């Protein structure tokens, strides 16, 4: 074992980390519906544990209950982060069951059930904000980023002094424009990724270890 590795394993190193940083954090994956939150959660789990978080679908509000996995360790060179990862339902300001019928061919009964569960999911996602240490905010890089949901989530997290990483997802799509996201939210790190193909997720992991490992004093709302 080299000197550096011995230092990392030492009690002194652990004391230093306890004083200046966190190595266990509860991280929420947030965003509007259909931006690829569960695809990203699956990607992270597959890369670091071989597991998956949940099913994905082109129909919005596929994730209607928060799901989580504990003790996922991400290694990045000399640093690491152990996290509990929470995949939250998409946050929306409106849910119309007719959209599920008209756009995705679902039956009326199934659409109404899905819409009802989706409203409960939004409430659950918002309540999880009280219990997390950092957020990966997933945005669709092919869409206009200035939605009120994005702005509201960011404003809320800033008020809580929680660290935010913006994952500009779907970068593999032809019309993706991560530069638009970067200019829309210059105050936060924006990492272009494709959760589907895994493109640039190494960079996301590096930023997660860096940003979520910092010690902060979060504000309770």
């Amino acid at each position, binding site marked *: 074992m080299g000197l550096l590795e011995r230092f990392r394993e030492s009690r002194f190193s652990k004391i230093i980390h306890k004083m200046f940083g966190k190595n266990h954090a509860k991280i929420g994956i947030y965003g509007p519906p259909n931006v690829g939150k569960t695809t990203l959660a699956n990607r992270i789990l597959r890369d670091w544990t071989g597991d998956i978080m949940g099913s994905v679908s082109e129909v919005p509000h596929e994730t209607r209950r928060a799901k989580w996995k504990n003790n996922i360790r991400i290694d990045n060179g000399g640093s690491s982060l152990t996290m509990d990862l929470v995949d939250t339902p998409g946050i929306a300001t*409106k849910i119309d069951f007719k959209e599920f019928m008209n756009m995705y061919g679902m039956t009326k009964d199934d659409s109404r059930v899905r819409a009802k569960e989706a*409203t*409960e999911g939004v409430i659950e996602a*918002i309540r999880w904000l009280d219990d997390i240490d950092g957020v990966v905010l997933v945005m669709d890089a092919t869409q206009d980023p200035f*939605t*009120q949901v994005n702005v509201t989530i960011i*404003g809320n997290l800033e008020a809580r002094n929680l660290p935010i990483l913006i994952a500009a997802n779907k970068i593999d799509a032809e019309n993706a424009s991560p530069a638009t996201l970067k200019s829309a939210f210059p105050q936060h790190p924006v990492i272009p990724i494709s959760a589907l193909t895994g493109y640039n997720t190494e960079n996301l992991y590096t930023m997660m270890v860096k940003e979520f490992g910092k010690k902060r004093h979060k504000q309770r709302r």
Partner: protein
Amino acid sequence: MTKKDSGIAFNLISRQKLEHLSSLEKLQYILNEVKEGRILVLEHGLTPTEQTQLIEHTMKEINHDTFIGIEIGGYENEKVGFFQRVFGVVKKPRMTVIGPAHLLRMVHKDNDMIETTIIPGKGAS
């Protein structure tokens, strides 16, 4: 929602009207008005925390036959400088438009303009 023959109500709400209300009273007022089919333009919008609470309250109020939620758009809160922060000045919410989602659609929003439209067939001429 009550769609009146005279058209869609568009109410511009002054800062003074809301500033003496608690957050909960403010949200109840807004949600009641929007459920009645009115579109509100708030001179002084909601804080991010209030906006999140509004979304939460809206979800509880959704009735799939009469109220499918809200459309909301506001400018980012005013930034405050270092010295203002030292003296306890917090970010101020700015103008915000809120309406029922079956009537109002956000077309585009950026730092300088919020573009909305009334959904065709719901009162637009």
